[in-house]
C-alpha cells in the first residue's frame, strides 16, 4: 500500500459558488466543493490530479489529543 494515491478529477461545472468535480477514471464519484478551493487557473472543463496522502504525524497527534481528553474526563474525580 502506497503512502499516497492520485485520482483524476474533472471540473464538470460551476454552480454558483460551488464546483462540481467528477472523480475517478470512470467518474464514479462526485465531489461538490467551494469554487474557491480550485487551484488557480482551474475552472469548468479542467482536468485535476487529486492526491490523497496519509499524514502519519498528524494521525498520531490527533489520537494522542483525544486520548488525553478521555484520560482527563475519566480521572476527574481522582484529585
Amino acid at each position, binding site marked *: 500500500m502506497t503512502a499516497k494515491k492520485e485520482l483524476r478529477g474533472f471540473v464538470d461545472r460551476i454552480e454558483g459558488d460551488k464546483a462540481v468535480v467528477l472523480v475517478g477514471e470512470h*467518474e464514479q464519484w462526485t465531489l461538490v466543493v467551494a469554487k474557491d478551493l480550485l487551484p488557480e487557473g482551474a475552472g469548468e472543463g479542467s482536468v485535476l490530479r487529486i492526491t490523497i496522502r496519509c499524514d502519519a504525524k498528524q494521525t498520531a497527534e490527533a489520537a494522542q489529543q483525544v486520548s488525553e481528553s478521555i484520560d482527563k474526563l475519566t480521572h476527574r474525580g481522582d484529585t
Partner: protein
Amino acid sequence: MRKILPIIVVALLPVCIAALVALGPEHRGSSPPDGRLEVHFLDVGQGDCILLQTPDGRNVLIDAGDRDSAEDVVRYLDRHGVDRIDLLVITHPHMDHIGGLPRVLERFGVSQVIDAGYPHGSQTYKEVLSSFQARRIDYRRGSAYQRPQVSKSVSLDIIWPADDYVPSGEAALNNGSVVVRATYGDVSLLLPGDIQSEAEDRILAARRELQSTILKVAHHGSQESTSNEFLQVVWPQYAVISVGAENQYGHPGRAVLRRLNACGAAVYRTDHNGNIVFTTDGRAVQVATER
C-alpha cells in the same frame, strides 16, 4: 393435428387476453392516442430529461438526466413504448444532462443527434461521442435556424446557439445550450436547457418567435436565468422546473419563483410533482402529475 390446433387456439385465447390486460394502457406503442402530442418531464432529480411523443409516433429525447437516474429513465421509456429515439438533443454536456446517456444508448437505437458540440473533456461525454461514432449515428451541431425534420405534425426549431456565438467564462456551456422550440397546432413548448441571462439577452435581440404555452424553466430555476425580460416575451401558461429535492445549489431561486408567479404561469416542479406529462391535441392542454 387439424383437430388439435383449434383446441390450442381456444386454450391460449384467455392467456393472450389476460396478458394484454396486464400490459395496461401504457404499452400502446410509441404513438400517443387520438393524434395527441405528449410531453414528458421525467423526474430525474437534479437534472433534465424530456421526452416528446408526437402524434405520428416519433420519439424525441432532450437530455437524459444524471447517472444516478439512468435506470429510471430507461424503465420510463420502456413503459411508454419507446422502441427507438428518432431525435436525441444534447442541450450541453454537463453530467446532470448526459449522465444517463450511456445506459440509454445501450438500450435504444438513435436515428439522429443534435448536440451543442463543445469540447468538454469528461470521460462520460467522450464515451457518448465514441458510441455515436461506433454506431454511425447521424450527428450534427445544433445551430439557430435549423429545423430538424422529425415529425410531420410537430415542428421543431433550434433557437440557439447562434452560429457566431463563442461560449466563454464560467457559464460557457450553460449559455451555449441548444434551445429548442416545438410547435403543434396552437400549442408551443420552449426548452432552453441551462441558458443564463447572457444567452437570454442574445436570444431576445434576435427577435425570434418565443411566446410559448409551456416553458421548461432554464437551469433548474437558477436565479441567473429566466429574467423578467425573457419571461415577458415567452409569457408561458405553464412552467416546469426540473430540479432535485433539497439540492445543494439553492435551485430554484426564490426570485425566479416570484417572477413566474407574477406572469401568471402555473408552476410544476419535478421535486414536488414527480413525473409531469402534458397532453395536447394542438389546442387544449391537459397536465397529469405523478404526485
